[in-house]
């Protein structure tokens, strides 16, 4: 009989896999309440470190060409496809879904990466504009990423909901700090390994497993976060009030469905800013 070498699940910050600085962990159980793993329990200091990493990575990611970002997101899909079995088994084990259902969820997650990858170099063609102002001026509106996004992934989705939370943020050049589902955190943490092998620069996505109730006010209140996605919280109104202190852009819980094989253009645009530039024309 051969003994398995079991995986230690750690956080994903700045492209590396640290344990929580608090040294704490919590138990993740499967759908039959059997112990699966002890997972890092992130603290407010991990939130602080993750936001720092996200901010440091943001200018580089935003200034990569849209073509390059699209290639990276497509690579994530390639890597995920290559490791689908592991995800299928984690999802089935934690949620009690059948293998077939779990398989469908992994396919949706992969296809959603592909859908997002195709948007990087099209956003401005669809949502930008040359504006015909009444004067001898060149006037153009483009969409720029807002910066650092703090996101609370849905509690009830092991993988596809998580993907549909981080992909819309990073497609345009934002970086993200995301708190995973508390009970279903394993596939999200394993996805960190996929991200780390996909040419995604460190710090673009930072993954914190733990209690949303403990972490969300720190993340949402952090003054160096530009936008927040409140999908996975039970405390949405409080958090929206906190966000207002620094006029953060807010995506309220329930705004966008998260279980499909594609995302939503409006979700992407919610995390961008329109910039309009004028220049006279004349010789």
């Amino acid at each position, binding site marked *: 009989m051969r003994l398995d070498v079991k995986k230690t699940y750690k956080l994903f910050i700045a492209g590396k896999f640290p344990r929580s600085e608090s040294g704490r962990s919590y138990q993740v159980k499967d759908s039959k309440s059997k112990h699966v793993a002890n997972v890092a329990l992130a603290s407010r200091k991990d939130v602080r470190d993750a936001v720092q990493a996200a901010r440091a990575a943001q200018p580089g990611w935003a200034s990569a060409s*849209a*073509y390059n970002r*699209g*290639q990276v997101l*497509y690579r994530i899909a390639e890597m995920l496809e290559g490791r689908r079995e592991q995800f299928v088994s984690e999802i089935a084990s934690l949620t009690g879904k059948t293998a077939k259902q779990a398989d469908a969820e992994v396919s949706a997650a992969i*296809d959603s990466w*592909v*859908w997002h*990858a*195709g*948007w*990087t*170099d*099209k956003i401005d*063609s*669809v949502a930008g504009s040359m504006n015909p102002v009444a004067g*001898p001026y*060149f006037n153009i509106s483009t969409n720029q990423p807002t910066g650092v996004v703090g996101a609370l992934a849905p509690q009830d989705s092991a993988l596809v909901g998580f993907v549909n939370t981080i992909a819309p943020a990073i497609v345009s050049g934002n970086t993200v700090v995301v708190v995973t589902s508390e009970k279903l955190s394993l596939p999200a943490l394993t996805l960190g390994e996929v991200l780390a092998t996909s040419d995604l620069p460190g710090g673009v996505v930072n993954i914190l497993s733990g209690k949303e109730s403990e972490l969300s006010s720190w993340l949402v209140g952090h003054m160096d976060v530009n936008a927040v996605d409140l999908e996975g919280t039970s405390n949405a109104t409080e958090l929206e009030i906190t966000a207002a202190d620094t006029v953060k852009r807010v995506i309220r819980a329930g705004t966008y469905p998260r279980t499909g*094989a*594609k995302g939503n*253009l409006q979700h992407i645009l919610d995390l961008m800013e329109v910039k309009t530039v004028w*220049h*006279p*024309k*004349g*010789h």
Partner: protein
Amino acid sequence: MFDYAPAPEAKLASFEKSYGHFIAGKFTKPANLYPTINPATEEVLAEISHGTAKDVDLAVKSARAAYEKVWSKLSGAERGKYLYRIARIMQERARELAVAETLNNGKPIKETRDFDVPTAVSWFFYYAGWADKLDHAGLGPNPQALGVAAQVVPWNFPLMMLSWKIAPALSAGNTVVLKPSETTPLTALLFAEICQQAELPEGVVNIVTGFGDTGAALVGHKDVNKVAFTGSTEVGKIIAKQVAGSNKKVTLELGGKAANIVFDDAPIDQAVEGVVNGIFFNQGHVCCAGSRLLVQESIHDEFIKKLKRRMSTLRLGDPMDKNTDVGAINSADQLAKIKKLVKKGVSEGGELWQPECKIPRNGFWFAPAIVDNVSPANTVAREEIFGPVLSVITFRTPAEAVTKANNTEYGLSAGIWTEKGAKMLKLADQLNAGVIWSNTFNQFDPTSPFGGFKESGYGREGGRQGLLSYLKAGK
């Protein structure tokens, strides 16, 4: 002293002895063969089938069947994934494709490696991402494909032109029959292999090789819904007449005689580079080449001096050498045309200057040339030469530059060199060309629509606009 020494690229491409057409996912038996050569050495690379009307008919039938039974039934997301696969395989085989293109076309390996192939790949990546987003193309929700597209591409950027045609067509849900130019069929045939490797459903892409008559049969076939042509204005007009009265949608990307306008407040060294790039890149075999230099009179002498000095560092020679800048002229025919026009230009008063180049014994070669002192009334100011020949004309004011630049039946591109933003933007408004490059030239990107005004054609390739000619509004 420091002459770089020969730096040959490895011969990474190999060809079959002969090729048939690519129809319904398979290669047909080679028949009706003619040789395709390397224009730098005149050696035969392979034998190619000269497509007959019957071959064309088979290809269109296969495209139609694939459209009805398979391609129109796939979701956009699935179509997109096929295109992503094709893009990836092209990336994997990029060096091989670059070598094949250089051998068959005569252009330098530096260009095929760094420009032709990467650009072709990027077009597939870009349009792969549109396939499941057609609701945003600008025609309202759920737009429909047209059906079967007949596509004819030229010899100057064979693989790249193929990608400009096939990627948007497939993304929008059409199936295609493509005819490459008779002198440069090889990368299209390698592309057919790539379609097989990508497991593209049979008949979605069909390649029929041959000459002008093959193309005419394809364009004229009654079961084709859309015609896309890139090539000479002369043939473009024939095609437009051929499809008149039919239901076929048509787009044409034809010739040009672009003005590259250099003002006295231009960033001069970069302008010299841009002018050189504009006309000598790809041996001037570029529809949007900056073949007319419109230089402000006050800086004419200084500019021409710098231009000549820069041209003296152009390296003409073996296209497979990594340091070659100027490769071979694509065919004996084209070389004869260029020589004839340059002779005319000189006879009309132009001053010809060419740097000293060592011309290889075999193959078709023309050293980069300036014809200075050209007037707007001269032949070389008006007629497209499609070779490495720059006609130099002067102007005094912005308004005069605009008049001279627009004084042509063509309207594909134009270049504006000035550091003054307001002047540049106003000129961009006034120049009648589909692509305006300011302080740069010959920039291409799959996100950026490309196409001409007037007799340079109609329709755009690239960008969201590039999809429109392959779609119609949904019900």
